[in-house]
């Protein structure tokens, strides 16, 4: 593999053909245009928002405007933005980790015992289709109106999905691999740790990617219901006191946070896959 790529780069500069040059240029140009269009749409959107607000065509009190959002952001940054951000990120990460760990453990149990898995099937189906937010009041009563309730909510939303996703992956493990392991006398634990789990590293990361988003949904929903801090709290508070600038700013920050957390999972996946030799 390596040798070949070295050879390729050695060969490359003198032997590049005209057709290839055209092809590469075309590819490069296409890539550039995609980038330009992506940024263009954003800038255009922001510009028309600002202009229409300044001209009074839209009510900037309700819909806010980019410059006011910028000011609000600077204002927040000087005050307690980091604290709110920290609270939301902390709750999301805890909910996410709990969801992944418990979800995977439950999936392992269900994979292990076909009987338990068959018994719990209808419950899982119902729990999966139930909108977990409806459990909000129950969760608050059980866990108390605080951080625990919010983490609980995040967990409730991400847990069942993780269980089903992981279980599905475990079950789809190539049966030939399992047969091969069995022919060497592997026991169930060895089959799991040496074949089924490594085979499902990609499944695990898919589930992590889904979970980080779901966990954030749970946290924001939880913060809407109970809380004295966090981005969800800021959004609800802003709505109640009619400070739409605060609402918009918080939503935008939330979008950035969500994207960053997702990217972090993608980065982790790349690192692990590299280490795993995929």
């Amino acid at each position, binding site marked *: *593999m390596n040798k070949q790529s070295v050879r390729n780069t050695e060969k490359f500069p003198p032997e590049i053909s005209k057709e290839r040059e055209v092809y590469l240029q075309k590819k490069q140009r296409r890539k550039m245009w995609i980038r330009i269009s992506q940024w263009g749409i954003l800038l255009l959107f922001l510009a028309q928002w600002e202009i229409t607000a300044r001209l009074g065509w839209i009510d900037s009190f309700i819909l806010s405007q980019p410059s006011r959002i910028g000011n609000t952001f600077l204002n927040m940054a000087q005050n307690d933005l980091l604290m709110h951000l920290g609270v939301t990120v902390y709750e999301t990460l805890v909910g996410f980790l709990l969801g992944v760990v418990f979800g995977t453990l439950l999936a392992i149990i269900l994979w292990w015992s076909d009987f338990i898995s068959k018994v719990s099937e209808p419950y899982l189906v119902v729990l999966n289709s139930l909108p977990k937010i409806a459990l909000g009041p129950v969760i608050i009563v059980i866990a108390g109106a605080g951080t625990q309730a919010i983490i609980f909510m995040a967990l409730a939303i991400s847990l069942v999905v993780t269980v089903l996703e992981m279980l599905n992956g475990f079950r789809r493990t190539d049966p*030939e691999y399992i047969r091969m392991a069995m*022919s060497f006398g592997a026991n169930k634990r060895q089959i799991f740790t040496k*074949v089924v789990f*490594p085979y499902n590293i990609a499944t695990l990361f898919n589930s992590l990617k889904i979970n980080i988003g779901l966990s954030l949904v749970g946290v924001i929903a939880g913060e809407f219901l109970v809380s004295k801090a966090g981005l969800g709290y800021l959004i609800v508070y802003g709505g109640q006191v009619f400070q739409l600038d605060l609402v918009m700013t918080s939503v935008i920050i939330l979008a950035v946070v969500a994207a960053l957390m997702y990217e972090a999972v993608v980065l982790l996946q790349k690192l692990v896959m590299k280490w*795993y*030799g995929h």
Partner: protein
Amino acid sequence: MEVLNVKNIQEIYQAENGEISALKNISFTAQKGELISIVGPSGCGKSTLLSILAGLLKPTGGEVYVKGEKVNGVSPHIGYMMQKDSLLDWRNIYKNVMFGLEVRGMMQPEYRERAEKLLKTYGLYEFKDKYPSQLSGGMRQRVALIRTLAINPDILLLDEAFSALDYQTRLTVTDDVYRILKQEQVTTIMVTHDIPESISMGDKVLIFSQRPAEIKEVLEIDFEDPDRTPISCRNNPKFSRYFDHIWRELSANE
């Protein structure tokens, strides 16, 4: 020396819509270093027999003895190789070869050195750090064979082990494998649907009947050539006679 003794194996499947009798009174023996191929109409239960010998399936009746010892479940004396190489693509070649040793708790240096020696002898040592996806189908199959031989089995079971390879590769790989098996003196039971393959590799060919399978005939293959290889056999005048014979036996079933 008799290594394998299969006695009156019988297998009846329990399915939702009734019983299916797959094997009936299968008995045969194998000497050390002998290569026995099994041919039969498709779906006759050849692979079921191998699953039983491998200990993955419990027969409804009968016993299997390896070196006089009764086999119960997966035996460390028996290696099993399937059509798919099933190399784990997240492990490099070295670690794939060590898989069986790892599972069996045989990671002591002497076993590992043996496996490394096999890799070296059969020209795969320089690929030990590569991953399965970087190897050709023929090489992958050879790695799978070494993985099976690493546990030092007395008996090797080959279940259509070469049928996933293209024809050209198949001929060279069977030639290689034949050489490896004869050199390591491994007793081999090979199931195949390829009649030429069964003749060119086998010392004996067991011809199975339609389901429920019985041994219809045991055909001794003797090319009177001490240096026979699967490819040289194919030019031997006796080859086509054996082929015709098996062909007639198998078509008589239909």
